[in-house]
Every structure is written in structure tokens, then in C-alpha cells.
């Protein structure tokens, strides 16, 4: 289908940057940190408990948007698999010279393999660049939400939010 989407089905960069779960550019430059793309007041708070550093706060009422204390976040990735909305990503702009890494929840089989070259997609599902799978994490504590990390050219780090599934 080639029909323009009339009402956006994902948040804009502006909306994300205004949200309390989005780290500053300065913090992003420092190294691994989570980006919480949760901008609606919905009743949900598992991320708050998932963070061992207490870097995420929802508080009362439960419909508050998650607030990220960017200095407390150590980029451990533990919250990424625990968000019921699959809305938390881990960005590392310091992954390597010129490349950044993006970790995202990926609940589709088959899982990609480490080292595999894949097509990375943006929030609209459009393939925007090639990516290399750095890690596929799926320990028991993830509760069957695997987290895939891919390396992408640095300029795409704020756009890449997933990969093309096989056969697409």
C-alpha cells in the first residue's frame, strides 16, 4: 500500500524530545543511555521497578509519563525488555568510531544472529540503512522479550527502532 498516513502512528522527534523520558543530547554523547518513547498518560509503571539505579520515576498518579534521571542511568538495558509498550530503547552513540548502537525489544521469530547484516527500519517501518547485529539478549529474566542490538551509522541512531523481519 502506498497511501500516506494521515494521523501519525508514532511520536514525532519534537514530541519525544519534550517528553520527560528523553535524555539530553549532552547525555546521549556521553555513552549508553535509554530513550523512553512513552509520551501518553497511560496507567502503567513496570519500568519504574525494572531500573536497579532508580533512574526512572512514575510516582503518583500511575498515569504520569516516566521521568528519566539521565545521570543515574548507566545504560544497563534491564528496562528495555520490561516495558509492556515496547517503548524503551538503549542508544549508545559511542559504540565505535562513526557508528552507534541501538537496542530494541524484538518479539519475532526467527531471531537474527550475532554478526548478521540486516536492514534497519525507522518508526514508520521503512528500511533506512544497513545494520550489523551486535547482540541478541534473551535471558530468562527478559520474560520472553528478546532484546536485539544493532550497530548503525551514527546519524541514524535517533531514527532506527527495529529491523526488517525475514521475508519482508
Amino acid at each position, binding site marked *: *500500500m502506498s497511501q500516506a498516513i494521515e494521523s501519525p502512528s508514532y*511520536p514525532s522527534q519534537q514530541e519525544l524530545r519534550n517528553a520527560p523520558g528523553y535524555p539530553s543530547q549532552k547525555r546521549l554523547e556521553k555513552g549508553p543511555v535509554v530513550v523512553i518513547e512513552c509520551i*501518553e498518560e497511560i496507567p502503567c509503571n*513496570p519500568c519504574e521497578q525494572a531500573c536497579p539505579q532508580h533512574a526512572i520515576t512514575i510516582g503518583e*498518579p*500511575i498515569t504520569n509519563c516516566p521521568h528519566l534521571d539521565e545521570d543515574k542511568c548507566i545504560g544497563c538495558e534491564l528496562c528495555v525488555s520490561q516495558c*509492556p*509498550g515496547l517503548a524503551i530503547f538503549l542508544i549508545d552513540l559511542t559504540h565505535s568510531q562513526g557508528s552507534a548502537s541501538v537496542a530494541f525489544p524484538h518479539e519475532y521469530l526467527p531471531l537474527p544472529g550475532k554478526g548478521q547484516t540486516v536492514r534497519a527500519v525507522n518508526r514508520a517501518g521503512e528500511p533506512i540503512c544497513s545494520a550489523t547485529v551486535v547482540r541478541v539478549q534473551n535471558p530468562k529474566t527478559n520474560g520472553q522479550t528478546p532484546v536485539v542490538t544493532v550497530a548503525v551509522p551514527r546519524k541514524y541512531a535517533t531514527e532506527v527502532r527495529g529491523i526488517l523481519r525475514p521475508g519482508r
Partner: protein
Amino acid sequence: MREVDLAVVGAGPAGLTAAIEGAKRGCRTVVLDMNPRPGGQLIKQIHRFFGSREHRAGTRGIEIADSLFHEAASAGVEVMVEAEVYAIHDSTLEVVAQTNEDSLVLLSEEATTSRSRPLSIAARRIILATGGAENALNFAGWTLPGVMGAGAAQTMINLWRVLPGKKILMVGAGNVGLIISYQLIQAGGEMVAVIEATSRIGGYGVHAAKISRAGVPILTSHTIISASGESRVERAVIAKVDASWRIVSGSEQELEVDTICIAVGLHPNARLASLAECELCYSPSLGGWVPIHNSRMETTISGIYIAGDLSGVEEASTALEEGRLAGICAAASLGKERAGDYDDIKAIEGRLLGLRSGPFCQHRQDAKQELIGIGEAQCPKQ
């Protein structure tokens, strides 16, 4: 005739928590459910739940169903599956049950096909937790095989592991439409599009974002005109609608799909409540005709309580809380109170208030408040 203190109809989140609270307070409690497995809709919810820690947010529904069933069993609740209640009169439930013995707890994975027999159960208190039912949508070709409720598609993929089709159109972008679209992709289906007649996505943005990055277009202000095909759905025609719900002529487009899922809301499944002569009132925010109830979840018929989607279509989290509330209040009305009941009720009410706040949920709090207001005037006094 079997005699129990408390009979609960429906073994979903509301029914099971109601039964647990009743049994914990010493009520001889039976839960009747027409399905082969307890858990209601929870058994096909493979996604993580929203809500708070108290509502087991972050846990998948299927896991909640299992733990609720075990909690009920250890509290002494008798759960009868494949037991359909078809009438309620004079505190007696008429049941068609697939059992050999009245007291048998059946938990077979396979549906038994034989030995259905009538059974009468006299209950001092009844809690109806019959859930919600999917709304239908009429359009040309809506009776073709391949057109189904989104919930039916979810049952097929998650319970029976059958993919209903390969190229799927979802009608409705509320949470149900968005979540089931995601699960259909996980099951290997291709979502051709999600269409929504209103101008905005009704479900949570995070659900929309999830299927958007999976490459699924979500078309708002679009409706379905027709489905057609030789012996099943082969294509659908969709079109834009304007602000006054008129089809924008010339905007029609044909989609090649073999399955059309309808996710245009749910309504309280009030048939049994209606048979029991509970008075209903119409509440758009709660999904349609809903039995009137007071703050103790008691209906206009003394001794009959309700909980969960039957008392207004909401979420599993609210159903869990309302079930507990109904169970505590029904037990209390039998003199089976427990120290701390008052505090428990206040805590439940507080959590319900939290769940019904925010831009998505406040309208349900308002509607509930109104319904309970009517209930306080019309339902039997304690």
C-alpha cells in the same frame, strides 16, 4: 440440587478474584465457565499487561490466568469448566455441565464431547462475571468466510495455533485492534492495513508505534465498504470518510486480503443478567447496556452481584479489582466478614480510581460514578 454460598458465573479475571475473596471468607464457592479452560480472555493474552505492580503489570495475561486459577483452587474454590448457565431464577442457576459428578472439577485440555447433563445449583449469592462480547459491523460481504471478530482471530492464533489467513485487514485502531494486529504479525500473518473510521487512533500510542515500525500502515478516517470473493474473502474495498462520516467519493481503494478482522469495540455481555431480571441502563462510555449496580457491585436484584466487563467494558486490571470488591461484599452480606474488609475495600476503590484516571480512562470513572449513583438509588439497601 447442589447448594452453595456463592456461585460465580465466568472464570475470567473478575470471576476468579471474586471467587477467591468469597472462599477466603469461608463461603462454599463454585465458579462456572462455559469454556474448556478457566481464565477468560486472559488465556489468549500473550502480551505484557499495562497497569501497576498490584495488577501484575509487565506480566503476560496467560501467566496471570494460571496463577489466579491456582490461587482459587488453593482457597478451596470449585471451578467447573464447560458448564453453561442458561437460566437464573429464585437464587437457582440452571446449568448444562459436562460432568459425571456434580462436584467434579474438570480441567481437561480437550473439550469433552459427551455426557452433557443438566444441573441445578442453589446459591445464596450470585456474582455474574460474564465479560464482554465483540460488536459486529455490517457491510456488503460481511458474512463471507474470512470476516471475523478480532477476538476470534486471537483465539485462533494464540489458543489453537491456527493462522486465519495470510493477508489481513484490521478494522478498528483501538487497543484490541492494535494488539491483535501485533499478535497476528508475530503469528506469521501480513497485516495489509489497520483502518479506523475516526480521525485518530483510539488505542495507546505505544501499541500503534509497535505495529507502525513493523511496517503496518494505520489509516485513520477510513472505513470498509465491502468484502468480496468467490467462496471466501479475497478482497476488500476501503474508502475515506469525512468529518460527518460520509464516504469521500473517489477515495475507494481495493485491497487484496483474505481475512478481515473487526475490532470496533465490545459491549457488556448482559444476557444472563437480563434473564435474571437485573435492570440495565445505557452507558456509551461503558460499552452499551450495562446492569445497574451500587458501590458494593450489587444489582437491582438482591443477592446478584456483577463484576468485570459485564459492569462496563474496561481492562483486565479493573476486572481483577472489581471481582475482589464483589467477592468481599457478597461474603459480607452473608455475615462472612473479615477484620480488615473495610480497609481492603477502601484500598480497592483507591486503586480503581487510579486506573480510571488520565486522558484515556477518566471518562470511564465519570460513567461508573453515574452508574453507581443510579445504583445507590435503585439497588437494595444493605
